């Protein structure tokens, strides 16, 4: 029995495969080296002066959404509205009144990362993000 294996129309098959691979990876080639710059959220003067958030910065960066979720459950469902940090500092658990009091620059703080990560939190459908403007 003849054991040699023949690739029929080898040239066409290989060319086709190469074209297929190029086409599929085209978006990667197209966008190569054009990565959006890493977001640089800016702190307001007030936030800088405060130095510490309700938790260390690295934890806030990674888990602020879980913290806010815990806050909303505690405030709405358990009627507990005060957050005491490990070193005894107290905060009103309020997105509009506490978080945005320091981080009053939502566009340059919240939105920079959210846009970069393509997440659209629906907090702002109800919670008022322009506390200062609304007051004026």
């Amino acid at each position, binding site marked *: 029995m003849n054991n040699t294996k023949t690739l029929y129309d080898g040239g066409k098959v290989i060319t086709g495969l190469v074209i297929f691979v190029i086409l599929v990876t085209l978006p990667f080639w197209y966008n190569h080296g054009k990565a959006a710059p890493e977001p640089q959220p800016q702190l307001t003067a007030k936030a800088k002066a405060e130095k510490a958030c309700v*938790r260390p910065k690295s934890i806030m960066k990674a*888990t602020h959404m*879980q*913290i806010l*979720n*815990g806050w*909303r*459950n*505690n405030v*709405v*469902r*358990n*009627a*507990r*509205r*005060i*957050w*005491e*940090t*490990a*070193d005894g500092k*107290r905060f009103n*658990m309020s997105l*509009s*009144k506490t978080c945005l009091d320091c981080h009053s620059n939502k566009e340059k703080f919240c939105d920079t990362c959210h846009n970069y990560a393509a997440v659209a939190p*629906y907090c702002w*459908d*109800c*919670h*008022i993000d*322009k*506390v200062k403007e*609304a*007051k004026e």
Partner: protein
Amino acid sequence: MKRSRRSFLQLAGVSALGLGLKPAAGLFAASGGHGRAPGEKVLKSEKALKAKQWAMVIDTRKFESAEDLEPLIEVCHKIHNVPSMKDKRHEIKWIWEEEFEHAFPTQELRFLPERIAQLPFLTLCNHCEHPPCVRACPTKATFKREDGIVLMDFHRCIGCRFCMAACPYGSRSFNFRDPRPFIEEINPDYPTRMKGVVEKCNFCAERLAVGRMPACVEASNGAITFGDLEDPESEVRALLRENYTIRRKQALGTGPAIYYIV
């Protein structure tokens, strides 16, 4: 070593289970996230007002016309960012006025004294002792708090409106449209709602939490009394002892916590 297919499959199954278990356990741990680091606490304010069942006694003898009720309605709707919709079908109301025969259809209506027949009655969520809306809500977005307040968790509301069908008092409104453009002056201290959620009076839970009386009580010049129904020494109990009061649709057994002196 010779192995049967059966024993091989058993071993493979157990191994797969073991391998799958660890990431799954990690998943559950990570999805928690609400935990607090040691030393962190969530507390109630020392100033917060406490009760077992908040209740309201409205002395309707102190109101004469719709004009007397207007400031109360206005202050409530203003601080809670309640929109004023022109289209009646989209109306949102937390506290509103109602004719006697509509507010109390089960009371004797045939020979009403003129004063009562013409007097507008202040109506709001009754914060029932046995709230039917809470039983109807499929997501527990509406729930009865420890202090008796029937509260809405707008975050959880899916807009099914079962609660509106269940409430015999018409105390709930649905946001058919985005309410923001219809709020004349937004109060930055209180969130608005979004399209697709139900809303109603919250007995000013946000004010009680900082030691203040509900806004309508404060604005009523003493016509509305607010207090703990379970406390025999409270002001509301004193009023109930001294006056004959009626409640809306009592026979339904919901146990409304709004009492009217007529």
